[in-house]
């Protein structure tokens, strides 16, 4: 039981590490490439900004969910 818990914890730690690298790259892309554009969009075109905002968060949710699911599956397969 303890061995199983340790294995799960290790898998989770690996997932977190991989995820952290992905997220750091993502920060760079989103904040540096989109930051300025979103700032101007918010100031000048509020309606477009509202649509872009909701699309960005929804797309990010689906994409990151897919990434974490894939990571979980990959790590579980490796454990077997």
């Amino acid at each position, binding site marked *: 039981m303890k061995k199983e818990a340790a294995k799960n914890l290790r898998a989770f730690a690996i997932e977190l590490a991989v995820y952290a690298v992905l997220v750091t790259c*993502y*920060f760079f892309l989103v904040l540096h490439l989109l930051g300025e554009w*979103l700032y101007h969009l918010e100031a000048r075109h509020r309606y477009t900004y*509202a649509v872009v*905002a*909701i699309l960005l968060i929804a797309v990010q*949710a689906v994409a990151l969910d897919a990434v974490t699911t894939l990571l979980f599956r990959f790590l579980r397969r490796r454990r077997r």
Partner: protein
Amino acid sequence: MFFPISNAHINPIYLVVVGFIIGILGGFFGVGGSFIAGPALRLMGVDWNYAVGTDLAHIVGKSIVAAKQHRALGNVDLKLGSIMAFGTIGGAECGAQLIQALKRAGNVNMVVSYVAIVVYLGISVFMLWESRKTLQSDKRRSQAGLVKGAESKKDRSAFGPVTRSIQRVKIWPMIALPTSGIREISLWIVLLVAFVGGIFSGFLGGGAGYIRMPSMVYVLGVPTHLAVGTDLFEIVISASYGTISHAIKGNVDILIALVMHTGAVIGAQIGVVATQYFAGPKIRLAFVPLPLIGAAIVIYTLMTGHKL
């Protein structure tokens, strides 16, 4: 890191950690976590109107992930969630208009802070009373040998008699919610519960799961696990509307929301898996400290100015 839209300097790691904690809470309790996220953003000096709008945007993303996971576990009543979304959207718009009126009057931070404290404390006290009473009653029943097998896993509530009286109110049209085990209930009661939740959502931010999840259990009589999943599904629809509404009014910093959400994705997955290991009253009892944390942060912010 500087976030130009809300004109705030916030450490992104702080945002990711806050997102992660909220993700766990959201997955486990079916709440958006605004009672933590709103005060946590305010703590960093973000104005309440931005804290409210940005939190809503982050909640959309987090709830998509958690609702998808709950759907896979069979914890979502799609019919109930879809009906409630209409009431919530109407209420959220009223709440957002209230925020706008306070913004114009120049006292948005003070009023929202006081309302938040009262609401958070009220929910905690009520849920503590109810879940403790239910757990004590379950203990007595099991000691007397009245509870056996599957019966012991039934989601009881000390508020049950009041719930049954509400379900007996006959105001046409009556609807059936078989997934939630409700034979008959007035459509207007469902919409009213959603509308009240919506007002809190638009006014205090977030999906107002801290109001809606307990309301679904105590007023409508939905089992706790289903209330958690259905609430999240409903939050996706209503928080999306709230985000668009607040973004048009200039209250959303989507960059902050995107950063917070990266932590929430992992947290939500952990929270959803954890619900399988706890009974309804225990989930409700564990919920009690959460609004208290939110209230404590707001009180601290009020007393000290803002930043920690």
